[in-house]
């Protein structure tokens, strides 16, 4: 019996050990001196970066890049878990939204020795990835801007030409020609347009402008282009500001006007929007909305809507006399706990080089951060029959356009957690915009810690 017991104990011990070591092996995510593990979230971009990896491997025999693609929602949860468990990748695609948080948590490796120069990339992209401490934590990878996607069949039926749609202007008082166009594109159940007498705002068949929800604290594809073209900025400083400005009267007047479009029946109410089932692009695809503000990362999605003949227009001119769009750029970051920092940095340097970015550009799925990479992407989109000038003009033309970054500050997750319900309360429950004063105070209190 004793022998049996011992055997049993030994066997279970061995099993437990093998499980633990198995986990450890799995946990290391295949990292070694010859392998670099890399995570990204966009499945469309996977083939482009696989091609880049082959390029690096050719230049560095013996070095192997292992790419893992994870969906956006799983990506950040798994990355966080990876940081905690020590199973993080060597290199990962980073978003400005999470940059501040990861920099504060000190999980990123400084990349100062890569010699990244601002001038090698589109304006502002490289500078955004320098932390509060003055060290660089990301190498510019790509960029995106926002434009107005429109169903050209609907605009044609409404008598609106591409030229007219590209010369719209707006103001927070009467909405300008932009609101007039959106009203005209709106059609109720009885076929009456939004600017016609007898229009039934409670029974709308096609909305002039699609809804992308309340927009959290950034309003990237909602209200941000309006607020910026009215002269407003998220923070008191372009980078690492210490005070948010949601209490600004300018900002609040923009928000009041923007969500007011829903009250007038030109934009769906918040209750029609759902982040899972009914985003702006779905509304356009379903023929429930004629136009939608959306980002460059959605170009291929909109182009694929059969029978809709989607085209794009520039964001409208605001009270400052300029058009505005957020210009957000992703970067590649190296994790501090990487087991192969030398290999990881080599890969990041290659990802940030013209050699790789031109390859990525040729796939026509994203605008790479270098100028040559962007040109390659524009050519690739053109080859597919897609005109992307509404997205590239704001980057090239600084006279007529204002581009701004996603808010770069610490505690961005706290800001989002407070701003999301605050904006939804205004949009969905009719709460006054002045309620943002209190929310702003709460956010700034956290920021002052």
């Amino acid at each position, binding site marked *: 019996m004793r022998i049996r017991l011992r055997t049993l104990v030994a066997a279970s011990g061995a099993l437990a050990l093998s499980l633990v070591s198995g986990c450890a092996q799995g946990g290391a995510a295949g990292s070694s001196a010859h392998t670099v593990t890399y995570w990204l979230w966009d499945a469309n971009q996977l083939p482009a970066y696989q091609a880049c990896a082959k390029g690096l491997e050719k230049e560095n025999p013996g070095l192997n890049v292992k790419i893992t693609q994870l969906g956006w929602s799983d990506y950040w949860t798994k990355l966080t878990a990876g940081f905690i468990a020590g199973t993080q990748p060597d290199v990962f695609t980073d978003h400005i939204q999470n940059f501040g948080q990861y920099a504060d948590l000190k999980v990123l490796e400084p990349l100062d020795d890569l010699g990244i120069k601002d001038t090698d990339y589109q304006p502002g992209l490289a500078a955004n990835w320098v932390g509060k401490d003055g060290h660089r934590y990301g190498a510019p990878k790509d960029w995106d801007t926002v434009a107005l996607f429109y169903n050209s069949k609907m605009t044609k039926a409404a008598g609106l030409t591409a030229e007219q749609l590209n010369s719209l202007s707006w103001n927070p008082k009467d909405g300008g020609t932009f609101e007039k166009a959106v009203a005209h594109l709106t059609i109720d159940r009885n076929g009456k347009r939004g600017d016609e007498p007898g229009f039934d705002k409670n029974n709308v068949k096609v909305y002039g402008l699609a809804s992308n929800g309340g927009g959290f604290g950034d309003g990237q594809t909602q209200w941000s282009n309006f607020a910026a073209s009215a002269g407003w900025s998220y923070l008191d400083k372009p980078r690492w500001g210490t005070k948010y400005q949601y209490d600004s009267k300018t900002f609040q007047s923009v928000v009041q006007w923007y969500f007011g479009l829903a009250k007038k029946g030109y934009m769906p109410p918040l209750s*029609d929007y759902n982040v899972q089932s009914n985003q702006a692009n779905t509304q356009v695809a379903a023929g429930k909305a004629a136009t939608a503000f959306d980002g460059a990362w959605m170009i291929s999605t909109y182009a694929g809507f059969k029978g809709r003949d989607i085209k794009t227009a520039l964001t409208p001119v605001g009270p400052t006399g300029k058009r505005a769009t957020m210009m957000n750029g992703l970067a590649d970051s190296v994790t501090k706990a990487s087991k192969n920092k030398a290999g990881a940095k080599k890969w990041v340097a290659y990802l940030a080089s013209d050699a790789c970015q031109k390859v990525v550009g040729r796939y026509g799925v994203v605008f790479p951060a270098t100028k040559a990479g962007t040109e390659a992407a524009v050519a690739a989109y053109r080859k597919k029959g897609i005109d992307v000038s509404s997205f590239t003009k704001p980057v090239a033309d600084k006279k007529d356009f204002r581009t701004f970054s996603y808010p770069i500050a610490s505690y961005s997750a706290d800001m989002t957690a407070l701003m999301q319900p605050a904006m939804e309360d205004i949009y969905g429950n009719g709460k006054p915009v002045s309620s943002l004063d209190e929310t702003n105070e709460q956010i700034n209190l956290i920021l002052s810690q």
Partner: protein
Amino acid sequence: MTIASSSPPSRLPVGGAAKARSKPRTRRTDVGENRGDGRLAALFIAPALLGFVVFLLWPTLRGIYLSFTRFNLLTPAEWVGLDNYVRMVHDPIFWSSLKVTVEYVVINIGVQTVAALAIAVLLQRLTQSAMLRGIVLTPYLMSNVVAGLVWLWILDTQLGIGNEIISAVGVDRIPFLADETWAIPTIALINVWRHVGYTALLLFAGLQAIPGDMYEAARVDGASEWRMFWRITMPLLRPVLAVVLIMTVIGSFQVFDTVAVTTAGGPANATNVLQYYIYGSAFGRFQFGYASAMSVALLVVLSAITVLQYRLTRAGRTDLG
């Protein structure tokens, strides 16, 4: 095998010197074999005990400790005393989350228990078909996330087939998951749909234990089905019903996945149930100390409710026999 070879004390020798002399030897053997049993028992208990300590006891104790700290998981925890609890008491979102959670539990458990009881009684009194029992259980075979997504698509205000039908019959579309008033009842009913079959089967198993002759006797006395339900079924099912209630209430308080996929806590915190708020604070905002404090509060609330339910329903006693 071991149990059979060791005699219980009552079977030990009852008289005679030879037999008496053999007593110590027998005892030694007993003790020795008992030791063997103990080790074997310990070995068999070990995996469960290890699981209990590693996955329940230790995390609970550590969670309680962390609730007194400021902790972001990646840097060492910093002791802050009762700060997290003070913040919790003054946090309006915590209280609104608790209120929303209670609202969800009341609707979810109320509707689910009544519906499950009705299904269980119908299954027992009308049919013994195993196929029907299988059909009743079908929604439970689906994962919560899939069920949530399917209902989200059905109920979408603008595009959902449910709202298309509502609109086709001339009624205004209902923002089931996008309106403050509708969202919680809708999520509660989605989960009723998924869990009612399972709950009904648990109750059905309880009904099987009620002796059939009681119903026969009642029928002889001229009792109606309604009367038999209230006078026989309900009193004798009470202990099972109580246990089912305790289990489902605890499960209901932990609602998370359906909220995560259908509303993500919105609109404007209207469905930000406690578990979702805890998750967001911990994994979104890296405030593990505060999230732990709220988890401890949830533990206290659930323990209190469970004890209260146990007492009120006399779950440990049966009226049978």
